[in-house]
């Protein structure tokens, strides 16, 4: 293949590919789980849970939210500055399962008040 044609093909692929990644990243939804099914074998897995915020703590610019969905509770880390209280709100949380000092947590990527 001629260099000029290869360059054109690669430019199109790069632009279309980048655009596709942006679209997919914003539109794919994770699987909904109940909190009691979350375990340490699911590290780095992206999930969605729905529940009520029963506790809220502010630590070093982070908000630690305790979410209960009726099956169990889990701590969820919100890395954004939210000035208002989220306590007692019903929320839908998306995030990756992580660990903090032996406890399983959800690192929140998206939070929606229901």
């Amino acid at each position, binding site marked *: 293949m001629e260099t000029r044609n290869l*360059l054109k093909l*690669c430019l199109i692929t*790069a632009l279309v*590919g980048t655009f596709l990644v942006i679209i997919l*990243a914003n539109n*794919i939804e994770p699987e909904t789980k109940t909190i009691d099914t979350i375990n*340490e*074998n699911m*590290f780095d897995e992206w999930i969605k849970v729905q529940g009520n915020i029963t506790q809220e703590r502010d630590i070093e610019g982070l908000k630690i939210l305790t979410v209960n969905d009726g099956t169990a509770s889990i701590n969820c880390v919100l890395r954004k500055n939210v000035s208002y209280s989220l306590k007692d709100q019903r929320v839908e949380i998306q995030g990756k399962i992580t660990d903090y000092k032996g406890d399983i947590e959800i690192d929140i990527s998206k939070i929606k008040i229901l």
Partner: protein
Amino acid sequence: MLEQIFIALLLGIIIGTLTGIFPGIHINLVATLLFITSAFFLQFTSPIVLAVFIISMAIMHTFTDFVPSIFLGAPNEDTALSVLPGHRLLLEGNGYAAVKLTTVGCFFGVLIAIAISPFFIAVMPFIYPWLVKIMAFLLIAIVLILIIREEKKMWAIIIFIISGVLGLATLNFMAIKQPLFPLFSGLFGTSLLAMSFLQNVKIPKQKIQDIKVEKKEMTKILGLSILSSSLVSFLPGVGSAQAAVISSAIKKIDEKIFLVLVGAVNTIVMCLSFVALFAIQKPRSGMAVFVGKFLPYFNEQQLWLLLLVTLIVASVAVFVTLLFARFFAQGIMKINYKWLCFAIMILLLVLTPIISGWLGLIIVVTGTAIGIITSLVGVKKIHMMGSLLLPVILYYLI
């Protein structure tokens, strides 16, 4: 206890060699498996023994990781910038010497990191808040310097922006596991392999010889690696890749000596991430995260034990890495390089869905296209580091 530490060190060396030599196996994967099964191991041993294993594996991996990067063109985010200079030396018959340069850099990096650790333990809690404030502006200045230095400035800007947007989208693509694997396999791995395949590159007979580097030049480059590594080691989101980019912007570096620099910043950043865990109680590398998990009350005595382990492993790593480099140098001529490139491309494409999921293939293909554009228009591969720099700049700005 001492016997257990010795066994952990030995196992770390063996596993770190395997993860380094085989493309696509990341030490984070092994560390995660160890963490998941740690309850079982902690019945027989103590957390410090597991931390010794993690550190031995990490340091060994840092050394041996350059062998597939240089001989096979299969890099990760830490070794990506070594691929092109390494590949050029490989085409001159100096693949062994290229690995030796990175090994020398890695070893000096460990010595330097241990020497400067007491200084950082003392000053880091004070300068850390200041570093956080300037990091975005420092990185913007670095990007501008690199673009200004480039002859084809418009192409450099295009490559930086496309790579940056791809990096940003990939890191926010939550469905992708280990997002840096497909990103860097595409940008720096499969793109180079595809070009070698298309151009039918032939590998000449490899010489087992050294490349002389002037002592003065070596001192300068190690000084530069201390400066750049120190800037990034204590901050989130930045690591050895950014340190190498910062160094390139500060001083124009000869390709051969650049390999020493990449090696040195890799080990300095890795060692200082453990110092950061002690000094500011924040883990700044994947490995430091796991050490922090095993040793939640990480103290100075444990830090020095781990740095001593680092020194022992580094001494062994020099010989093991050069042994593998010699083996690769002698073996690579017996293989048809064009088809070896093709086979490694297929391997990276097969590993992508296993490690990151099927959607990772879109990232590999897109990254490959950007990498090929960079080669065709003749701008430096370093601009593709926009894939990490743009997300980090935005992280510190917003």
